[in-house]
């Protein structure tokens, strides 16, 4: 089990994660989201869901490389906040962009690949969030860590979803990909070359 996070770090992390939500609320009340607030909300919530997912994946490599054991709990924290923002993102899409016209939601999912992959990513995050309470982790045992490897799939799908929407500039997608590729590479390298204890079959 990871070392207990010092309360101050935990508090700072929570404040950091909740800040974008507070800023979004302020923008709603100040009516400063521009002429198409629903669209702007969808963009902001989606961006933060993706950012926290990437932060979450960075925790373990940074922890191992810099021997920072105490940041281990941040992985779960960032992951759950990513889920939180993805719930907001989906809510904005269904409630504000489509005003609960479920037929159109279904049509989007069926006909528009960027929606389909976005939903797939969300479904993975949902399963991971439901299996993240400590009691469930204990009950699932080793299967938990296999299940939670799906987070990498969720990240790739989320990035694809974002990339598909942007039409003319790949700058933002490229930035995320530049972070994501070494993180994924590090995990693969560990798995196949280094074979750390616990994963090794030999």
């Amino acid at each position, binding site marked *: 089990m990871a070392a207990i996070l010092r309360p101050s770090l935990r508090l700072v992390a929570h404040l950091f994660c909740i800040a974008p939500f507070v800023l979004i609320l302020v923008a*709603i009340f100040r*009516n400063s*989201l*521009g*002429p*198409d*607030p*629903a*669209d702007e*909300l969808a963009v902001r919530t989606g961006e933060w869901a993706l950012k926290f997912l990437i932060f979450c994946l960075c925790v373990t490599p940074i922890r191992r490389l810099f021997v920072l054991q105490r940041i281990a709990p941040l992985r779960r924290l960032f992951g759950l906040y990513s889920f939180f923002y993805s719930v907001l993102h989906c809510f904005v899409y269904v409630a*504000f962009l489509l*005003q609960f016209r479920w037929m*159109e939601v279904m*049509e989007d999912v069926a006909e*528009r690949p*960027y929606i389909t992959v976005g939903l797939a990513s969300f479904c993975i995050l949902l399963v991971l969030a439901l299996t993240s309470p400590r009691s469930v982790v204990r009950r699932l045992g080793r299967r938990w860590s296999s299940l939670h490897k799906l987070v990498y799939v969720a990240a790739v799908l989320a990035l694809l979803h974002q990339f*598909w*929407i*942007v*039409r*003319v*500039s*790949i*700058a933002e997608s*490229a930035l995320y990909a530049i972070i994501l590729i070494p993180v994924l590479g590090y995990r693969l390298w560990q798995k196949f070359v280094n074979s750390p204890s616990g994963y090794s079959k030999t």
Partner: protein
Amino acid sequence: MLIKFRSKSDVLSSEITPESIYYSRRNFLAGGAGLALGVAATGFPNLALSADGDALRARAPEDIARSAPSPWWEAKFASINPAARGGPFSTDETLTPYGDVVSYNNFYEFGVEKGDPIANSGRFEVDPWSVTIEGEVDKPGIYNLEDILKPQALEERIYRLRCVERWSMVIPWVGFPLADLIKQFQPNSKAKFVQFFTLFDPSQMPGQRSRFSTISWPYREGLRIDEAMHPLSFLAVGVYGNYLPPQNGAPIRLVVPWKYGFKSIKSIVKIRFTETEPETSWSMLAPEEYGFYANVNPEVHHPRWRQDMETRLPQSLFGSSRMPTEIFNGYGEQVASLYSGMDLAKFY
């Protein structure tokens, strides 16, 4: 074309308070200066203004009074003919507030976010400005904008603008018919198409410096010659009775109201008359998503956006301003005949 005479009850847009005065109201209230002084200071003669409440206007930037790019512009803007009411050159629909028109823009030369153009175009130089005329014309050459505008009488047009991203606005433009400009240069019988180019100047346009851009600059657009000669096709040099801000395509831009917004190319520096269909930026980038014609059509969907509905801006979070999209953006009566016999699903 319908010629409409003014009836007594018609409110000329020139009779409505100009936005510049409206927005400077606090200045003269605070300073205790007289209204007359305020009028003298702003210098704009007239024009349309949204009849909506303060809540919508509150979003507009305070400093909207634009100074003339150079003195001859002031003379040019001294008289502007109001849009003929009741016909296609005007509409009774609520205008999109000035603040939204100038702050929510797709102009990728200045950045890909909607707020980038207003943020990055503050120092854009529009004077002097020249336009190159080339190709199948009897009078090719490089013309000063002043000379191009000299024979044109400015008029107002209130048009719907429908973006392929499914949002729409209603905008009061100031300008003159594209046909009048084209006649000036006398295209020959081989001129079947007209191509337009936006300025290429990476030192002023940060979007053109980006390595991550997928557009090959300069931005270019085109029309068939009969589309270009249509009375609805318009060249705008102003908006809301005011000089065009850079983010809206200063100093001169195209407005083709029955086509998706990306056809209405901004900051034009070159017009080329061609015999064959010219290249257009979006169909060069994604030919399966964007065709040459790009007519607003609720039955032909873009792969990423259904096109049978649109959101009229501004909208609030809790009240939808969605409305059905009309064929040719509601200008079908005027333009449908241009496409008779054409399969619009094939020529999208």
